[in-house]
């Protein structure tokens, strides 16, 4: 009888050991799942990179949401729809928007008044999607196709030569 118990114990231990090794190997060597929760959350955000949530861009905000550092209602351009979708994805309570008053949207576009531009390059520095181009001390301009309308450059301009227009 003891032998059969020993055999059973040895078999189970063997299986446990083997699968433990296999899983350990897999988790170390195989690439991690790319479609992580942060990516899923990031997917739902409007990608304006406007930083109105207080984070540097949509992805950092997504990471903060997943880490439970931030609420899901901090994205004004995304609006209630985004909050609702985030709530559904993360199984949280949909909250009212923290700061509802926001004109920022994908349908607006920054325009540099080129006669006023002094070429300081500050706007180029803050643009989250590299949509502003120009050489130092020369006129800068907005690449309309790439501009997300985040308005970050507007307040940064020292001569106040950037305005927003309705684009699309």
């Amino acid at each position, binding site marked *: 009888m003891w032998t059969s118990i020993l055999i059973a114990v040895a078999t189970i231990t063997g299986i446990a050991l083997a699968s433990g090794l296999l899983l350990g190997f897999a988790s170390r060597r195989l690439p991690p799942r790319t479609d992580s929760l942060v990516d899923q959350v990031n997917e739902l955000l409007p*990608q304006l990179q406007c930083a109105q949530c207080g984070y540097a861009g949509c992805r950092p905000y997504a990471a903060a949401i997943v880490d439970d550092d931030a609420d899901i209602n901090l994205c004004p351009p995304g609006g209630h729809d985004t909050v609702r979708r985030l709530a559904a994805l993360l199984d949280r309570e949909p909250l009212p928007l923290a700061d509802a008053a926001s004109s920022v949207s994908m349908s607006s576009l920054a325009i540099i008044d080129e006669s006023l531009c002094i070429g*300081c390059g500050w706007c180029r520095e803050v643009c989250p999607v*590299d949509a502003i181009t120009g050489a130092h001390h020369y006129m800068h301009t907005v690449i309309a196709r790439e501009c997300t309308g985040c308005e970050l450059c507007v307040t940064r301009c020292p001569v106040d030569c950037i305005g927003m227009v309705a684009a699309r």
Partner: protein
Amino acid sequence: MRPAPTFDLGKLNGGLRLPGEKANSTAMGIQVVPVPAQLVLPLTQHSGNAAQPVVGIGEKVLKGQLIADADGALSAPVHASSSGKVVAIEQWPVSRRHGDPAPCIIIECDGRDEAIGLAEPVIPYESLPLESLLQKILQGGIVGLGGAVFPTAQKLMQANTLPLESLLLNGVECEPYISCDDMLMREQAADVVKGAQILMYALGIQKCYIAIESDKPEALQKMADALTALNDSRMVVKMVPTIYPSGGEDQLVQLVTNKEVPSGGLPTDVGCLVQNVGTAAAVYRWICEGEPLISRVTTVTGDGIVSPMNVLARLGTPVAEIVAFAGGYTDRAKQLIIGGPMMGKSVTTDRVPLVKATNCILVMSHLAPPLDERPCIRCGECAVVCPVVLQPQELYWFACADDEVKLREHGLIDCIECGCCDLVCPSHIPLMASFRQAKARIRELADEKARAERARLRFEARTLRREIEEQKREDELAQQKRAAITAGPKEIQEMVERARRGKPPLERTEKGPD
């Protein structure tokens, strides 16, 4: 020879038998509208990119001269329809935008109607290599004249990469009132079949069906006669039943070949290429007679027109002049529609010019009365008549709820906007309008999504670049720090000497934030 009755037709789903209303405009032959005082030629008379003007203001142009060239992979050139002087390139109301302005070239005609000499003599198309034949068709500014105005050369080029069985010549004008293709086939049947021969040569196929509706006996007869005269056994005239919308590309393919074009696909997916009869005639006139697409047959009709007729008019002729040629408006005229009553566009002004897409100028005496919309009673009539077998009543709910996923699942993209569902709905629900809106909304969302994706990638690239820069700076600082820590007495001595020699201090460089 009478065309043989055809029993081997496929079945069209749904559809409606609408009153034809075509007798008025087919009573007399095609009348030629005189050259107007001014021609307005929009740069976008085709689907794809707008053509680029190649003439300047004040320049003299001749009839048939290239005035705007094709731009990019999907585009078509525009030619001057008569001789004269370019007076402006400016915004002008166009029918494509319901009477809102779009860029146009405006020519003041000199009345001489002088044609430009041919750049190269007309050579038989059989002696041309395929590539240059297609290129030549492109240069003729020829587009699909059925209404979609897709550039013909590009359609042929795309089709040439696929295995094809047959060419389908669309002589089915299923919308009420329109009769321009009917008249064209009656009067220029030879041009149409010769054009079809060129198209078959360009596609390298040996079969061509010419589909004509059963309510056009004269056109059927004339086309059959033209075929007999030409003695080309590769072409067959097929009589199809008069049901709206049997003239839609996919519907016609199903009727004639009994093959269903897959959802989201093209007729080429089932081995067919559909071309309008007018397009075939235009191809013939350009390839064999050297006349680019500068005029077209169009129907002027409706109970708001004094004498309805079909006219041959230069492209760019203002609609007002064509209407005046047809006797003008009656007192009862209320609404001007470019196109047919089902799928046409209501325009706000008759200053719009005739363009390649204009197959009908319809003036109605009554506006469609706005009937009270009532709740859907789920009678299912709309589903019965839908030619693409959709469930309009379901789609309507999803369109109201803006449910993009469900709309896709239920095949909204396959809706051809024929308007059959609208006509039969006993509750007068504006189904087609809501589908058009929903389609636009889906396109907008897809566009937004693509832009968001691009913004995401650019943001991530920028973040990565900044991290690398930061890392580099830190490494440099660390290295300097290490150098300072490991500096021995020798290096310190050197530094002191450098200072003693009185080396001028480094000039301050201006440093921007970058």
